């Protein structure tokens, strides 16, 4: 079994125009920086990107946006990106905003082979649209569908050569579910270790979900809002 690829360029091989890609991360925390950069250096366009956020103007998914490589964005919150708001209001970019928990569960369901399920979030709001509505236990729910993608790209702290992954702190976030929902899942890790060296008790994402893995380089890990106390 050989899942190890050399670098991000090799990892994103096979991604074509109009592909659907999921990206792990919350804000700029835990985003697959190397693959995002590699994608931004290609001429691939028409992408449908699924990610909780859309990066900021000059980092993360914001770079794909600025280079007009994105056709559609599926996210829950895009507030920190002015170019996003501009492309959305001008109609250049198609956008689907989904409640965060529903987005996470749709991805989890997609990865777990569940085609659809009911949740209460969004009932009576514009999220409802023409979705099927059903009452359970006296409460109204919307039918939501599982979500998968051609490629899922995640970032973990540590991974082994068979794709077992361990995330760090709140950089776990959407990476955990997104890893399960790609037809091809790519993992970039800060530290790549030999198969058999990680404690099986500590694995967050079992390697079965991961098809390609590589050790990333030069992580910037930008911080959106550095807030501190004095002592």
């Amino acid at each position, binding site marked *: 079994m050989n899942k190890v690829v050399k670098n991000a360029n090799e990892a994103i091989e096979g991604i074509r125009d109009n592909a659907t890609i999921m990206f792990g991360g919350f804000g*700029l925390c835990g985003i697959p920086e190397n693959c995002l950069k590699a994608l931004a250096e290609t001429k691939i366009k028409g992408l449908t990107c699924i990610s909780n956020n859309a990066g900021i103007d000059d980092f993360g998914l914001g770079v794909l946006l600025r280079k007009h490589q994105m056709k559609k964005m599926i996210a829950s919150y895009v507030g*920190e990106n002015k170019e996003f708001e501009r492309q959305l209001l001008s109609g250049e970019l198609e956008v689907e905003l989904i409640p965060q928990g529903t987005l996470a569960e749709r991805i989890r369901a997609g990865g777990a082979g569940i085609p659809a399920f009911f949740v209460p979030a969004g009932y*009576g709001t514009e999220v409802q649209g023409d979705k099927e509505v059903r009452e359970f236990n006296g409460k109204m729910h919307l039918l939501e569908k599982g979500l998968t993608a051609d490629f899922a790209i995640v970032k973990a702290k540590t991974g082994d050569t068979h794709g077992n992954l361990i995330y760090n702190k709140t950089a776990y976030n959407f990476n955990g579910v997104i890893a399960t929902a790609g037809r091809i899942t790519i993992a970039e890790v800060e530290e790549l270790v030999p198969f058999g060296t990680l404690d099986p008790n500590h694995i967050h994402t079992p390697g079965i979900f991961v098809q390609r893995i590589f050790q990333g380089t030069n992580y910037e*890990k930008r911080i959106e809002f550095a*807030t501190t*106390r004095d002592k």
Partner: protein
Amino acid sequence: MALDKHGIAKRIARELKDGFYVNLGIGIPTLTANYIPEGMEVILQSENGLLGIGPFPTKDEIDPDLINAGKQTITAIPGAAFFDSSNSFGMIRGGHIDLTVLGAFEVSQEGDIASWKIPGKLVKGMGGAMDLVASARNIIVATTHTDKDGKSKLIKKCTLPLTGVKCVKRVITDLAVVDIVPGGFKLVERAPGVSVEEIKDATEGILIIEGDIPEMKI
């Protein structure tokens, strides 16, 4: 005198009980963490995947892999737990969170809330707000009673796109504490020095006033 945002946060803190798991929204609700009564144990949840939010880090402690839902750097308390986003919203949707406090643009007297979108102006997205209001057992809205232009935020019917319907139980503002009851907003407490008349003037929805209205203790 109307309360400032810290005053509102102090009053919210009085809703906390020992052993509560609490999700505090961005803005005024977050300030509540500074006023948790001494000796009371309250665990704060951050929907990006943390139970046990600690204080902001010192400069040396900053960790880009450790942020809250507002994307601010934070710390985790000893005994904290990290998890992924679907597990996090499982806690929320499953009703495991004891109290959710969030801000709003508008609250209707039926308990509807609008907090995420101003058509044509603000398209940031709902984040986790719709999930929280649809499932939390106890939802308190923390807000100023009126907006910058003096327009009431406590109204008969929301005019902005909704975040959730019939979900808000209580509203804590700079002027008052009101509960959503059949028929309108029931005035529960007044901010120190604020008259019932002032609250009535600032409330566009129906305000139900029964008996003497006590002042908030903060």
